[in-house]
């Protein structure tokens, strides 16, 4: 363990050293202090409550290197993974690096710069904001991202602007990512009273094992409203760690709908906090884990001020030897009166060999609150399967329809049609093709 940590620190040092001599990076100081964080925070460990159900042995065995840049690689053809529909902006990241020639922003309400450009220029506002919501992080992987962040999207939406079409952050891992750690980092600010929708897609184009270590920091100022649709469809050998930090100003609204269906191992950590009353946080999610897959969601929602509401609703399907972890923690602090916090998690287990570890935790220190939580783990209803089969559908068709039915509550929340279609297709294909013996 310590050995890999030393490796990681040394690698980060090398990376930072390389940056100094190349384009110039105004963040060298910040990066160096994050390297210390790698050691101090240490690697996650199953003895820690937050990591009890999610081993990282495979991730460590992959020896994914953070000491590299992807800019020099010629790109493979990407047409097959480009999104359809119209966007207010399309920001493409290949192997963690921004691709200006594949990207556009065509709404004057959006200010965009790539993180790399901001770092090279020494954009003070950006430099000050980086890490302001995340801190160095809770574990070495966050610190590694801060120390060696490659690139990312720095987006701000002007006060009062309403961006109708989505802004898409498209992440594509290509063969060049094999054996490597990608470290994108995004910084999103919605100014007072602005509205936007962001689609965040993580795809893979025939890459072998790689580790996508993503951090996003999102600040919504007063009365701002963000709809964030996130889909993790990484390659089957990939490791994916997403950390989202979101802070809401007075009466702001953040809604994130998350799907995690790809990758061998994936973990999404969502940290939400409120700055003033009247804000609302809405987290939804859908996950699918089959043979050899682990999908993990961690929510940390802190009601630190009064009069805010949060609602979290996650659903998952596991089959074969798949494993899912759901850890939803909602903390309502003593001063956070008139809080409204609800948390639900429902799981559908299609096989005996699959596993779900679900742990809703509501810690309520205030007394004038409305809070609830509920968790279920169930199987396909044999009566429903009989009903469908009696209408001529095969057992696998019946299973597909019922799984899709189970997922539909969340799927329908994906307002982006192309995204919803892609997800629904993926889920249908997977659950229909499950080996019957193995169900």
């Amino acid at each position, binding site marked *: 363990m310590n050995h890999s940590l030393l490796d990681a620190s040394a690698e980060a040092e090398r990376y930072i050293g390389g940056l100094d001599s190349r384009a110039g990076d105004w963040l060298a100081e910040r990066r160096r202090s994050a390297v210390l964080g790698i050691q101090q925070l240490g690697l996650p460990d199953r003895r820690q409550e937050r990591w009890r159900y999610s081993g990282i042995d495979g991730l460590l065995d992959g020896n994914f290197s953070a000491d590299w840049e992807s800019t020099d690689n010629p790109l493979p053809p990407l047409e097959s993974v480009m999104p359809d529909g119209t966007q207010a902006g399309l920001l493409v990241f290949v192997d963690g690096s921004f691709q200006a020639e594949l990207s556009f922003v065509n709404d004057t309400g959006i200010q965009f710069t790539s993180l790399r450009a901001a770092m090279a220029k020494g954009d003070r506002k950006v430099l000050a904001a980086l890490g302001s919501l995340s801190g160095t992080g809770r574990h070495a992987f966050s610190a590694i991202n801060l120390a060696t962040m490659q690139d990312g999207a720095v987006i701000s939406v002007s006060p009062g602007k309403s961006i109708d079409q989505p802004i898409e952050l498209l992440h594509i891992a290509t063969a060049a990512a094999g054996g490597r750690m990608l470290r994108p980092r995004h910084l999103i600010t919605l100014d007072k009273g602005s509205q936007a929708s962001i689609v965040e897609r993580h795809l893979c184009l025939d890459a072998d094992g790689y580790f996508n270590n993503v951090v996003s920091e999102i600040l919504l100022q007063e009365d701002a409203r963000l709809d964030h649709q996130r889909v993790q469809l990484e390659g089957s050998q990939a490791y994916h760690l997403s950390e989202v930090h979101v802070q809401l100003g007075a009466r702001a609204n953040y809604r994130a709908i998350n799907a995690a269906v790809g990758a061998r191992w994936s973990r999404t950590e969502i940290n939400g906090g409120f700055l003033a009353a009247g804000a609302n946080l809405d987290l939804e999610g859908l996950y699918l884990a089959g043979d050899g897959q682990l999908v993990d969601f961690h929510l940390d929602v802190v009601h630190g001020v009064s009069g805010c509401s949060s609602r979290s609703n996650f659903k998952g399907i596991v089959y074969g030897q798949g494993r899912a972890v759901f850890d939803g923690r909602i903390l309502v602090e003593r001063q956070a009166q008139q809080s409204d916090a609800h948390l639900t998690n429902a799981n559908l287990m299609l096989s005996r060999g699959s596993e779900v570890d679900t742990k809703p935790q509501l810690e309520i220190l205030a007394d004038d609150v409305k809070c609830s939580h509920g968790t279920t783990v169930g199987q396909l*209803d*044999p009566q429903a399967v009989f*009903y469908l*089969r009696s209408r001529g*559908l095969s057992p696998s068709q019946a299973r597909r329809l019922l799984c899709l*039915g189970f997922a539909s509550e969340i799927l329908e929340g994906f307002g982006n049609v192309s995204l919803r279609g892609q997800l629904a297709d993926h889920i249908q294909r997977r659950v229909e093709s499950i080996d019957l013996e193995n169900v």
Partner: protein
Amino acid sequence: MLSIEGLRVEVEGKEILKGLDLEVNAGEVHAIMGPNGSGKSTLAHVLAGREGYQISGGKLRYLGLDLQELEIEERAHAGIFLAMQYPVELPGVNNMIFLREALNAIRRARGEPEIDALGFMKQVRDKARELNLDEKLLKRSVNAGFSGGEKKRNEVLQMAMLAPKLAILDETDSGLDIDALRIVADGVNLLRSPERALILVTHYQRLLDYIQPDRVHVLAAGRIVRSGGRELALELEEKGYGWLSEEAAA
């Protein structure tokens, strides 16, 4: 078309059907009546192939096939349809998508071409209108939050779309008011044809005012204790089932 001989069925070790015989020919409508718990739904489920029923004796033949050899969906492909007494709610499963997939699964199994989306839509809308089923229900999840009557009409809609050869309607009339009953009966009557057979499981003779059966059977204590023409239903209406059960026991 359907030939049942000496059928014995157990559920959880308890014998429910105790040597049941029934012969149904193409073009015929049979009514099966009988007191609660006599095994009517058990018979209907066994014909559809539902799991959990132990067939401990007897023969089940349908169009020259041994039914016991067929999977649930294979029976549907072969033209068997069961309108259930308690239709299952399928939250999140769209009624139209479900019905179209079912229809296409049956067509594929029979080597027929799949129906296209437009043709299907038109057909299902027309049939829903005939059954006075609110078109909005087509867009909702299968049976989820439907009233009792809506569920039953949805079953009849499925039957009309899937056009089975042997349809078994398990108490499709219960829970329907008189108008709905007439509509459902009209829907069923439209299906009557020389190639089709219908088995109506019912509690009340009133359904038989609208759908004239060729034969009426009384199922009591796990056997057909009496068979006759339409007049038997009227007799049952008058006297109840008590006298038959006593006769059977004697």
